[in-house]
């Protein structure tokens, strides 16, 4: 589907951005579940990731210290646990990087030195794992087409796990256990939850349950508290096409909805501007202007006409 699932920020590896990356993992996991496919990834609890990252950062520090490459502070290690990229590590000693690289190259350090450093620093399991990897490299089974290592470092490849697809229903089916993994996404929510979250914001605040929404890109609408976002009461055309008279009708109709009266149907001024793609850039520019003024997370604000008259 795509060439790997990168988690390195673009600024740290400009050669390697994937079209999906770790920022999209929740979307990807939800797609796996909703489409019922095995995209190879699974949900891992935040606590597990944090513990793994802390172990990894501490093991790296131990190896660097043992090999005399660098001494990282506790603060640096803690930052590394939660860092998305190098910019999250605070001020780094760039010369230390150069001197470590120099020491690795000139000292002829090999994986054996790293294994010994891990072992002597109390990371025996990690040392064993690297020896396992080293033996797997020497066996060379991973050199075959489409090879990956499974969790026990067994090789799955075109040779050991051939593609036996022979038409619909004959291909790979996730095991029951794998399906449970795929289904167990962390923001598991029902349609009702989504509707509730997305229900018209203004309408929820208004005592009458009726609200008016205005957006820079145009969509002006009358909404009611219990309706789903797109199931609004009245939807008006793009802002540049809506006249003052039409806005007045919007307000009047909202009041009629609120009072249980009969709204006067609005006739939308549909025009090329409302439909054709060549006007979309203008609309997007208007939207950008509006977004620049948005302050997310603020509570609702009472408006008045004071000062406008």
């Amino acid at each position, binding site marked *: 589907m795509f060439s790997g699932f990168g988690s390195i920020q673009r600024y740290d590896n400009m050669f390697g951005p994937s079209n999906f990356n770790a920022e999209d993992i929740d979307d990807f996991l939800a797609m796996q579940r909703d489409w019922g496919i095995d995209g190879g990834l699974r949900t891992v609890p935040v606590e597990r990731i944090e513990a793994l990252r802390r172990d990894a950062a501490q093991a790296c520090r131990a190896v660097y210290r043992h090999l005399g490459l660098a001494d990282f502070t506790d603060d640096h290690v803690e930052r590394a646990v939660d860092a998305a990229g190098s910019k999250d590590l605070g001020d780094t000693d760039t010369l230390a990087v150069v001197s470590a690289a120099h020491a690795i190259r000139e000292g002829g350090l090999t994986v054996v030195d790293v294994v010994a450093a891990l072992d002597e620093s109390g990371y025996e399991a990690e040392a*064993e794992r690297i020896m396992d990897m080293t*033996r797997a490299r020497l066996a060379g089974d991973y050199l075959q087409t489409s090879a990956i290592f499974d969790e026990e470092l067994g090789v799955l490849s075109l040779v050991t796990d051939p593609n036996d697809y022979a038409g619909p229903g004959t291909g790979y089916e996730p095991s029951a256990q794998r399906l449970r993994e795929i289904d167990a996404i962390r923001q598991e929510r029902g349609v009702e939850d989504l509707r509730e979250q997305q229900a018209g914001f203004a309408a929820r605040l208004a005592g009458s349950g009726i609200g008016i929404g205005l957006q820079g890109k145009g969509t002006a609408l009358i909404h009611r508290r219990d309706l789903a976002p797109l199931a609004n009461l009245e939807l008006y055309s793009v802002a540049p096409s809506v006249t003052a008279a039409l806005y007045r009708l919007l307000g009047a109709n909202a009041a009629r909805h609120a009072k249980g009266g009969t709204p006067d149907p609005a006739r939308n001024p549909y025009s090329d501007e409302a439909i054709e793609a060549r006007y979309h850039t203008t609309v997007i520019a208007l939207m950008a202007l509006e977004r620049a003024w948005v302050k997310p997370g603020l509570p609702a604000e009472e408006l008045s006409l004071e000062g406008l008259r």
Partner: protein
Amino acid sequence: MTDGPVVHALSGRAVDELTLEAVRRGEVSLADLRIHPETLERQAEVAAGHANPQLAENLRRAAELTRLPDDEVLAIYEALRPGRSTLEQLTAMAGELAGRGLPRCAALLTEAAEVYARRGLSA
């Protein structure tokens, strides 16, 4: 790892001997970490048996390359970049490799020399 013949490192040691214990005893060296040409030949046979002669040929060239030190492998790699070598330089390099018992690598360099010259990629 799959069942099959015992895998050896380039040093000749059986891979199963390369344990953490061996590292602790200081008995693992760089040559114990490099792949043996026999292993690459065996993988080449597997690839050929799975309808992938190109990969097989690639692995057999790799088997030849295990006889060269890293510096030399990298030098060949650099020489094969577009615009780095003349036809004569690549041809000479091919002759040298053939003389040292790396016929498949030599053939690749000979082919590259000819193709680079034809495609305007020679230095």
